[in-house]
């Protein structure tokens, strides 16, 4: 398209916007004095503003990389390259871990608490990344497994006095079992159908928790859930917060470690194959059902453990914490961060959870910003903030077969 054409279109857009905003931004009726105030300046502002935004939009669209070339260009994206360079990778990791270790001592308890919630989301994002990013199964009921984890700690503690450290793996295992139970009937479904069924499952779990008073204490929830104790010593409030922070950091590290190992394994490749092409995947001798169940179960497990930590952090849970909205946020962290990319999901979750906390001033506009960011992302970076890059295998051409060098990066 020619520039002239673009300008013409932008002009039309600005006219349209002026027309649309005319009633609210231009006419102001003063009902007391019964006079109409015409604010023509606003109209000019809207016109000029929308004209330039439209031009900018068109320019960005033009500049957007072509579909075919996209992959190459994304691979050149600096973050990816930096993260894959060993010389830079290790110092970055060391600095990052130092920062994380000092975090509760540098920042206030309030900040630490926010960070704990954000890290719980990171953990769940990484878990959901297995299901959606790797295996391509659109799961909208992910929060159900979070609830399973949280309630298993709360109830087991209430009835049997189970401590946190036993509940943590147990919550994970229970969520895993639930994941497999949900996975079984939906094995044949894909895409939209799967999304609807999982959505329903998430709601069922929530409704059961809300209405089965004898079991889950209904909407009033369960309170006085103990925080984790450290070698039997009761810590101060500040102490437990720090302690909980290190626990969740450890869990996130474990999640990253495990998902990283998984995604470059035989199992992980089967997941990606399943996502890319179900028929070809089966034709490669991969058991479709088993592969899906594995993804569902292993994804759910992290949500379950996240739930246990969540219950321990808030000391009070009720079904209101496990609404569909939570599933949507976790899904957004994965999509925004970059499906299948671990760094991307970590970044996405931190951004999505931390930014709203620190931008309280804009809380009225939160949903608008949220929506706009997602739309812009889908248009300009459909792969997410950090697109997943496949592992590079290096082969020595001289020594050939016996010296397969296996560059570790992911």
């Amino acid at each position, binding site marked *: 398209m020619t520039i002239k054409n673009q300008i013409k279109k932008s002009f039309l857009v600005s006219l349209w916007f002026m027309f649309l905003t005319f009633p609210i931004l231009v006419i102001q009726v003063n009902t007391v004095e019964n006079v109409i105030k015409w604010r023509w300046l606003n109209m000019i502002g809207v016109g000029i503003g929308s004209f330039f935004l439209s031009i900018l939009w068109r320019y960005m669209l033009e500049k957007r990389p072509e579909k*075919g070339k996209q*992959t*190459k260009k994304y691979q050149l994206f600096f973050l990816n390259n930096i993260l894959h360079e060993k010389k830079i990778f290790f110092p970055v990791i060391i600095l990052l871990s130092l920062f994380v270790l000092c975090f509760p001592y540098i920042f206030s308890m309030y900040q630490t608490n926010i960070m704990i919630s954000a890290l719980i989301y990171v953990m769940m994002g990484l878990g959901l990344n297995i299901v959606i990013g790797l295996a391509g199964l659109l799961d909208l009921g992910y929060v159900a497994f979070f609830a399973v984890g949280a309630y298993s700690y709360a109830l087991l503690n209430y009835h049997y006095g189970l401590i946190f450290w036993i509940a943590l793996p147990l919550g994970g295992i229970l969520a895993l079992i639930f994941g497999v139970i949900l996975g079984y009937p939906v094995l044949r479904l894909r895409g939209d159908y799967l999304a609807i069924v999982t959505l329903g499952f998430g709601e069922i779990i929530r409704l059961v928790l809300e209405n089965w008073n004898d079991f889950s204490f209904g909407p009033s929830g369960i309170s006085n859930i103990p925080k984790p104790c450290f070698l039997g010593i009761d810590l101060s409030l500040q102490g437990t917060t720090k302690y909980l922070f290190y626990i969740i950091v450890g869990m996130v590290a474990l999640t990253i470690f*495990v998902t990283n*190992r*998984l995604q470059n*394994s*035989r*199992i*992980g*490749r*089967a997941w*990606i*194959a399943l*996502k*890319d*092409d179900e*028929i*070809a*995947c*089966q*034709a*490669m*001798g*991969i*058991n*479709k059902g088993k592969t899906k169940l*594995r993804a569902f179960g*292993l994804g759910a497990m992290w949500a379950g453990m996240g739930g246990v930590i969540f219950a321990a952090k808030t000391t009070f849970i009720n079904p209101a914490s496990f609404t569909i909205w939570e599933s949507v946020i976790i899904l957004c962290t994965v999509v925004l961060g970059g499906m*299948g990319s671990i760094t991307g999901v970590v970044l996405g979750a931190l951004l999505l959870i931390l930014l709203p906390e620190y931008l309280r001033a804009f809380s009225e506009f939160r949903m608008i910003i949220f929506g706009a960011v997602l739309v812009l992302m889908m248009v300009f970076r459909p792969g997410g903030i950090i697109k*997943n890059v*496949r*592992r*590079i*295998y290096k*082969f020595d051409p001289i020594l050939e*077969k016996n010296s*397969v060098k*296996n560059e570790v990066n992911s």
Partner: protein
Amino acid sequence: MKSILKVKNLTMNFGGLRALHNLNISINKKEIAALIGPNGAGKTTFFNCITGIYKPSNGDILISPKGNNEKINGLKPNIITKKGLARTFQNIRLFTSMTALENIMVGCHCVTKAGVIGAILNNKSTKAEERLIIEKSYFILKELGLEIYVNELVTSLPYGAQKRLEIARALATEPFLLLLDEPAAGLNPQETNELDELILKIREQNDISILLIEHDMKLVMSLSDNIHVVDYGKKIGEGTPKEIRNNPAVIKAYLGEEVV
């Protein structure tokens, strides 16, 4: 000659449409056979039936890689692949978010067995197996002349290379019978000639049988030991390239009534 695949009275109905009608085909060990026929004759449907993607309405599919007949109709596609039937697709179906090497590594799935625990712990046996997968995949990649694309995403490969990569991926499953659905479609004459040599080489090096669907008659005539002709789901001829060339029924199916 020992036959490794015997298809008896295979019938496939799609609602009222009978795509395959009492088809009998048998493939011998180390043979290159071709399945030809006009568009819509049911060739791809035949592949889909014997690889388990469709469940045939009637008939028997028997394999005997080691001399003992085994019925495989109704089995799931992944089981059939494990038993040694590998295929390519008429429309390329590669795993688009993976690199060329990884596509072949997926093909190694059914001949390896590392599980979740192994993958997480990355213990000795998993490491050894992973190494084996990488070496084997790279070896196949080289065998098909694709080593320059090793770490490229498959979407950035030229069309011909993608077609060859599909064959490579199928070979990684270690089949005794390789099924190729129109391997030469969309290739230029030079690439088709190379394909001719490649298929012969694959048979020799892997010691397998090959059944190919193909419209390129030059390729079919020069490669095949045996040709099966289908039309409207029915078998109308079988024989060596020479016999097929002079078979009146085949000529009629391909060229229409008037010529005969």
